[in-house]
């Protein structure tokens, strides 16, 4: 019993009479990585926020090394050796890395902050973890991936025994993720316990020793990962047998729909050439910063023309603004759902109609009826789970939010879909539906450009992969030659 760092039983929590967590059960062994799995709305977040003292429980017990505890605040949880790396990053941009790590507990000498000691300690911590980050850099100068690594370093700086990581890899590329996994392994050897939350199954099998699955707010099962297959785990998460993880029924045609020739773009995209045929799903694969997103921004008119040719159905086109792109039948689902996909202050209907205001209005006046009809059709077509299209989109789960973004673009009847990480932060069930939508779109003759950091997704969905490295095309791989090893090898 003594090596159980954390034991949770019967944890309950309701919001306004609706149970978010009915039976939370979990136990964490020292020197292990324990994956907490479950779809959106399975109760993971509620569970973690109770463990961290952010929310109060309605019932149940939490034992820390055998001793029952109730934390009234995250500070108490930290004092008891439980730290969290949160999914939503909260850096203070104008401060240095060291200042961020030691925020609120800066070393003080003679009444003033001892910056030298602080920087030295922070640098030692970062070096120890193998993160290539300078402690004196400003947070605002770091990439999202590095900010994520700093957050991890910060959580570790508390010298906590239990470390919760909530989707820590969602902003990381393969390389940074590997660094993080190395750090996790080191922690494991030191006897720490890590609760690892991720939607990426391959990662879980890579790094974790054991798993616990929640579904609909309750414990479903747990065990050692060595004794479970990927499909069995998915079944537990989804709650019904799954035939295939990916859905792919499109057959690429012969005629090119989109041709990109010698394309240059801002922030380092050089001489990129590829084509996408009618009915084809093309993946742009590469590390973070390899130019994937920048190509999309250029194709969608969000960054200025820096040379190169774009042809659609053989016709050379100029794309200077998103309006041009839309007119030519392009649609762009951005990487950052909350930052550039949704208007979170708006409701489901207004978000679905946002890219098609022109067609839904007569002169300057919107047609409320046309808007309502469009929203109803799209909600049905995509199976969006919302009680009403007048509900705020911020209240939906990640998967449903992503479907709203897709619905917004399908309303414009596009022919070319640009999808940047379309299933990030989306649970397994909703992922499958998104794959179905993508596959159907291609089967009807559309072309899909897909950017994904999940190698499995690329392998599962793409007909052809264009591998990017340092802003250039490193090579192309067809479906028959694809393997995770080739892709990673070509991209690095």
């Amino acid at each position, binding site marked *: 019993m003594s090596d159980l760092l954390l034991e949770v039983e019967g944890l309950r929590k309701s919001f306004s009479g609706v149970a978010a967590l009915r039976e939370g059960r979990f136990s964490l062994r020292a020197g292990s990585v324990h994956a907490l799995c479950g779809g959106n709305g399975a109760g993971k977040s509620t569970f973690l926020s109770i463990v961290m003292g952010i929310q109060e429980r309605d019932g149940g017990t939490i034992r820390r090394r055998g001793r029952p*505890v109730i934390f009234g605040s995250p500070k108490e949880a930290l004092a008891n050796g439980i730290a969290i790396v949160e999914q939503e990053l909260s850096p203070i941009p104008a401060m240095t890395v060291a200042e961020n790590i030691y925020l609120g507990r800066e070393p003080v000498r003679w009444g003033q902050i001892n910056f030298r000691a602080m920087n030295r300690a922070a640098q030692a911590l970062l070096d120890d973890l193998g993160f290539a980050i300078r402690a004196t850099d400003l947070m605002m100068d770091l990439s999202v991936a590095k900010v994520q690594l700093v957050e991890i370093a910060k959580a570790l700086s508390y010298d906590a025994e239990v470390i919760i990581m909530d989707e820590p890899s969602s902003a990381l590329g393969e390389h940074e993720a590997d660094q993080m996994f190395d750090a996790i392994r080191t922690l494991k050897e030191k006897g720490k316990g890590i609760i690892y939350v991720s939607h990426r199954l391959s990662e879980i099998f890579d790094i974790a020793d054991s798993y616990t699955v929640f579904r609909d707010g309750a414990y479903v099962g747990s065990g050692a990962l060595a004794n479970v297959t990927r499909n069995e785990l998915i079944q537990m998460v989804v709650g019904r047998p799954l035939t295939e993880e990916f859905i792919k029924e499109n057959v690429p045609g012969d005629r090119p729909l989109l041709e990109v020739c010698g394309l240059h773009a801002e922030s380092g995209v050089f001489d990129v050439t590829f084509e996408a045929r009618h009915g084809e799903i093309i993946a742009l694969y590469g590390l973070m910063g390899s130019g994937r997103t920048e190509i999309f921004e250029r194709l969608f008119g969000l960054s200025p023309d820096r040379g190169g040719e774009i042809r659609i159905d053989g016709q050379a086109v100029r794309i200077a603004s998103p309006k041009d792109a839309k007119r030519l039948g392009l649609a762009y689902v951005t990487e950052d759902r909350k930052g550039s996909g949704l208007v979170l*202050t708006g409701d489901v209907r207004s978000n679905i109609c946002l890219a098609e*205001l022109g067609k839904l209005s007569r002169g300057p006046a919107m047609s409320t009826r046309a808007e309502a009809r469009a929203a109803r059709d799209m909600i049905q077509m995509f199976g969006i789970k919302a009680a009403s299209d007048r509900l705020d989109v911020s209240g939906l789960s990640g998967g449903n939010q992503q479907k709203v973004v897709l619905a917004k673009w399908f309303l414009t009847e596009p022919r070319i879909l640009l999808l940047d990480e379309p299933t990030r932060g989306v649970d397994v069930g909703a992922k499958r539906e998104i794959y179905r939508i993508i596959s159907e779109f291609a089967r009807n003759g559309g072309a899909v450009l897909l950017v994904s950091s999940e190698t499995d997704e690329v392998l599962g969905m793409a007909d052809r992969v264009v591998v990017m490295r340092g802003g250039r095309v490193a090579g192309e791989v067809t479906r028959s030659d694809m393997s995770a090893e080739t892709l990673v090898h070509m991209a690095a």
Partner: protein
Amino acid sequence: MTATDPPRTKAAIAAGEPGYGARAAEIGARYGIVIALVLLCAVLAIASEHFLTTRNILNVLRQSSINGILAIGMTFVILTRGIDLSVGSVVALAGVVAASFASTSATAMVGGGPYPAMLAIIIGIAVGMASGAVSGVVVARFAVPAFVATLGMLSIARGLTLLYSGGRPVPALTPEFRWIGTGDLFGIPMPIVLFGLVFVVAWWVLAFSRFGRQVYAVGGNPHAAKVSGINVRRVRFSVYVISGGLAGLAGMILAARTGSALPQAGVAYELDAIAAVVIGGTSLAGGVGRVTGTLIGALLIGVMNNGLDLMGVTSYYQMVFKGILIVAAVMLDQARHKRE
């Protein structure tokens, strides 16, 4: 930090289930300012026999109309995450310029005047829109924070007003021009008619027009709006033109009511306009708010000032109460968001 069930758990359960008290609180939060306005009117009706007379009601509405018109323009700007600090100065600038075309005074009028009232009014609105256009370009094209850009315009417009008028009032306005401030239509004073007209158009635009959808989208998430093909710069520019144009209209009503345009008119009017918008529940973070809220916010300020006047309270107290009202309204709003 013990294992025993703490008492707060029970409290949490109780709060989680919507009971009578919770529902009342929700209604209170949602319709708070409407309830506040009705309650205030009821109290004033009991406290003063003069309050519920037709004359006094028209008086309140007329006094609220200038602030109301400015606040409606301000609503558009604030919905896009902006602010327009220049409206008070634009009131004065449009006032003196329009008045100089409608003045019969030999020293103040533009050569060849007085011109028809319609022309003077069009010029006044154009002056307001031009000021707004300058702020709009600076904000939308050059990405200067709205606070700074319109703070500059506040100073520029006041300076131009003083330069144009030589620091002297523009007196002796033609009766036709004065009609927009002192005349009436079917017994309703013109300022109220114009306020009502502006309100109805603004309400329609925000609730039912394509431009309205774009305003909410740009305020809610400018990146998403841009990716969705909305011309974010054009929308940002347009709201300052609207605010400026309405400030021009307000400036002329003010001049027409008093019979001469004062170069020091409108000082600090922007603060009352912002207050009405904020009391009306529009979020300074953008994307959330309604022009009906602004209407009620403006009326609440007007009724409060009128009531305190009727009860013989000094106007110094009016400022204190207005300040409390602004903060209380936003606190109420915050409490509502927290619950959601």
